[in-house]
């Protein structure tokens, strides 16, 4: 009986182990998985998403990149960023290192508020500190501001940290669980398509690997005809598997972004970009 109980304990610990493993182990395991699955791709290539796998699509993407439609968003973002608040201060006062590029460090775990802070939220926090009302998560102004800041971070390696703090670990695990949990009428998890079946075809589309899914946001999607956010893309994913989606900048989406960005650590930021 005792032996059986130990056996069960051992089995259950085996089942829990992959869920609660340390973030760095997840990162190494997943990156190694994709590097062995796509041996011809370099670490940098993964930041290009599906275009790293599909040479025809890459050609048309590069053609658009010669005169990219997101340039308008970057220009408008720069204009907003350099425009002073009513108290005379600038966004630059909240983000002193913005010219060196800061977006590769977002999202991060904020010790004070015990929550994951995304770049959009950091911009809104800066506005609140300067007596300006926060911008809605999918507003043009906020997207343009993030587009400008992301542009300044181009080619900087993504550097997300998950501190050993229990709250940060919990947020990471929350995001990870969400990515790997099945949901919706079609009963898919994010990982069903983007880990187990990455690189394969789903109807006419190639499935992008998890590695590099966050590097290019905000992105100009041809489907949207404008620059949009990662959280808007999450909602699109949910619709495709007929699942209920959370709101942009909700806790679960921020945690999900935290997990996904952490796994892409070391890949270059290449946003804003263009995706189909």
């Amino acid at each position: 009986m005792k032996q059986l109980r130990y056996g069960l304990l051992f089995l259950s610990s085996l089942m829990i182990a992959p869920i609660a493993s340390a973030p760095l182990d997840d990162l190494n395991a997943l990156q190694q998985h994709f590097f062995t699955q796509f041996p011809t791709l370099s670490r940098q290539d993964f930041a290009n998403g599906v275009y790293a796998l599909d040479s025809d699509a890459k050609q048309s993407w590069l053609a658009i990149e010669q005169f990219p439609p997101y340039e308008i968003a970057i220009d408008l973002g720069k204009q907003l960023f350099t425009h002073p608040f009513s108290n005379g201060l600038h966004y630059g006062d909240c983000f002193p290192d913005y010219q060196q590029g800061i977006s590769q460090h977002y999202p991060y775990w904020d010790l004070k508020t015990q929550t994951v802070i995304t770049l959009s939220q950091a911009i809104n926090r800066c506005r609140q500190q300067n007596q300006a009302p926060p911008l809605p998560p999918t507003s043009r102004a906020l997207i343009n501001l993030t587009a400008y800041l992301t542009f300044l971070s181009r080619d900087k390696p993504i550097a997300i940290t998950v501190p050993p703090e229990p709250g940060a670990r919990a947020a990471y695990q929350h995001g990870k669980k969400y990515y790997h949990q099945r949901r919706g009428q079609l009963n898919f998890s994010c990982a069903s398509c983007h880990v187990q079946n990455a690189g394969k075809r789903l109807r006419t589309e190639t499935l992008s690997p998890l590695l590099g899914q966050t590097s290019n946001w905000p992105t100009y999607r041809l489907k949207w005809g404008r620059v949009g956010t990662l959280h808007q893309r999450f909602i699109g994913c949910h619709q495709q598997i007929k699942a209920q989606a959370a709101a942009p900048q909700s806790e679960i989406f921020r945690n999900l972004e935290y997990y996904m960005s952490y796994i892409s650590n070391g890949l270059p930021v290449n946003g804003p970009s263009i995706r189909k």
Partner: protein
Amino acid sequence: MSSIKIRTKRQADSTQIRTLIAHPMETGLNTDSKTKKTIAAHFIQQLTVRHNDIIIVTTDLASGISRNPYFSFEMKGGEPGDKITIQWTDNQGNSDSQDTLIQ
């Protein structure tokens, strides 16, 4: 900030002129999702391209063109330093113009 971005590229015996214009290009058939009111038609009607102040392209556009449209033209000849002017007029009477020199 001008609404027109222009890029030129010299090729063997021609010049490629590309332009990206920031414009809403509203058809007049869309409704605002919040106010439920129809958004007034607002689109570029005429676009002209000039090479050293001589019109080389005139286009009549309608509401079927996408938001922030992109156009590309091939021009025979073209020397470095030549002036390219692109100008648009929309149905609400607004207009904008931008010059660039061929590199």
